[in-house]
């Protein structure tokens, strides 16, 4: 799809900055973050008050530098696993502070900040807790927090940027959905978003599972 050219400011009083349409904002942020961002995500953040309301150019929503900074910061923090409510105080700051925070996060990027997450080959404690959790009840308690579950996969994701990107993208488009977790073997879990679509039993499901296995094998054989 062709992107419309930048619109020069007139909607925002006192600002002569470049304004973007939603598509452009998504493209720029997506490039900087190395992950795809959907318009749903941005709308969710706006509804939650994490991103300032966009300006208006006629009937069209327009976004400025501040919106971009907010979006970048939210995604950077969300990748570190912070919940939206924990993120909200960060994005209310001045533009300058937003830039500083982003700078700091870049300095301690995920890859270098967690250099040695070597999950032990057998983690008795984790298996034990998973058993406790599955026995703790069938309601909310098996899934204590939507923000917890996607993060349990972090040891794998921190070694595999591509997997992380896809995981985060799926999470962001379903931030308010719930996750289910399955313990497959000691120390190995599968986390499945409620919104994930699983093919019906039969050849389509087999093909789907095969793709997952291939994907996993690829990650294990070529972690980088």
């Amino acid at each position, binding site marked *: 799809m062709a992107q419309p050219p930048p619109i020069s400011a007139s909607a925002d009083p006192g600002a002569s900055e470049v304004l973007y349409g939603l598509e452009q904002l998504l493209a720029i942020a997506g490039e900087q973050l190395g992950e795809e961002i959907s318009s749903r995500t941005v709308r969710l953040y706006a509804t939650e008050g994490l991103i300032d309301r966009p300006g208006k150019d006629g009937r069209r929503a327009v976004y400025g530098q501040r919106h971009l900074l907010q979006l970048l910061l939210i995604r950077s923090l969300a990748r570190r696993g912070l919940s939206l409510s924990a993120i909200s105080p960060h994005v209310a700051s001045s533009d300058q502070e937003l830039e500083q925070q982003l700078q700091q996060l870049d300095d301690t990027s995920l890859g270098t900040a967690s250099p040695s997450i070597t999950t032990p080959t057998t983690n008795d*404690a984790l298996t034990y807790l998973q058993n406790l959790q599955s026995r703790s009840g069938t309601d909310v308690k098996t899934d204590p927090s939507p923000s917890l579950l996607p993060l349990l996969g972090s040891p794998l994701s921190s070694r595999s940027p591509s997997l992380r990107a896809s995981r985060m993208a799926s999470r962001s488009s379903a931030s308010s959905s719930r996750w289910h977790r399955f313990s497959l073997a000691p120390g190995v879990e599968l986390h499945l978003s409620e919104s994930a679509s699983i093919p019906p039993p039969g050849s389509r499901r087999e093909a789907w599972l095969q793709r997952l296995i291939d994907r996993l094998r690829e990650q294990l054989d070529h972690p980088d």
Partner: protein
Amino acid sequence: MPSWHSPLTNLLTLPFPITMQPLLHVRSLRPAVAADSATTLDLLITIAAPAIAPELEARPRPPLNLALVIDRSGSMSGTQLSYARKAARFLAGELTERDRLAIVTFDDEVEVLVPSQPVSNPQLFINAINTIDCGGTTALFDGWLAGAMQVANHLDPAALNRVLLLSDGGANVGVVDSTEIASKVAGLSQRGISTSAFGIGSGFDEDLMGAMAGAGDGTLAHIESPAQLADLYASELDGLVRTLGKKVSLGIRAKRDVQLLDVINDFKLSSAGNWQLPNLRHGQELTIAARFKLPPWQPNREIVSLRLAWNQTGGKERLSFVEHITLPVMAAVELEGMEPDLVVIEQFELLLANRERSRAIEELDRGNLRAARALLEAIDQRLSLLPQTEAIQRERLLLEEKKALLDQDRNLSRKRLRRESLRSSMSVWEPDTDSNEGVL
């Protein structure tokens, strides 16, 4: 902003791993046993973890892998929560990028505010902590579970892996039975993650918190004023980095014909028949009192063997050593004439005083205020007969205070009695000064 400057900053370079062994000393009430009649033998066993040798001071301390689990239920209101936030910020500020921290809050639901990650940017944690506000009921077990998961995901045998649970209430949602919770906490402790339980204010369940910290091989703290929280966290970090041994156990093997009558500390007994001791910390001593019954005894015959075992911090294997105890033998008349060791008497009495507190609590729970008071008075009576050392005087003051509180604030009295009764068998935090004591 008050300055939370703590001694911990000096400890960030503590030695690790530390290869020093704990030392075990035994002294008996009288330095012999009788040859011609039965003897009741009182043994005082002290286990001392040596202070850190100066040449090791420059080596880095072990990394910490912590989850701070904060009760944000409705009762945890206003001032209390604001102190809890302040103290949590302090904790985040004390850690380094070698450490991991997770922040979990719970009311009727659990939220992982910050998942476990290295503390390379304390501001990240601090901002998240600032968002904590009050919620509903108290799903204490689920909160603990979520925090434990955060630690377990990054379980590192070379690190000190611990959940710090801060609560002002009893569990009233989810698993609420304290025995059941404690057994689950114990299971996790067996798998390398300890739990400390901190009760704050006047509404927490002192029995539950005591059971969790005991089962969790961690620290029990009762904080009456939230202003004490930062001191408590500093002390907890200090204790963690000074840990010489975890899962410490003492096997007391009475030889043939010898009967072990009592271990006054009321430690938990493991399935292998060993007494479960609190963590060993450098520069600290554990005092254990054991009473035996012996028939007429022969010279050079071993009376009891003591086997101390522990998991070295950062090490994988379990270490242990055995001490064999024999004592000189003499005629009963002669033995009677010997001066008893006053230190042994004093320590036995202090530990017995802790045990009597548990009995006083039982009476309180039966609504029998008078019997509870009588028990406290009886302890004081016994203590008044001993040389009035500093330790004895302090103990008598504590008892006096509890007795007065029985009328004024029975709840507070019970909480303090419980805390003091557990001093015999686990790590119990006590503030350095009494200046912080008081109402909220």
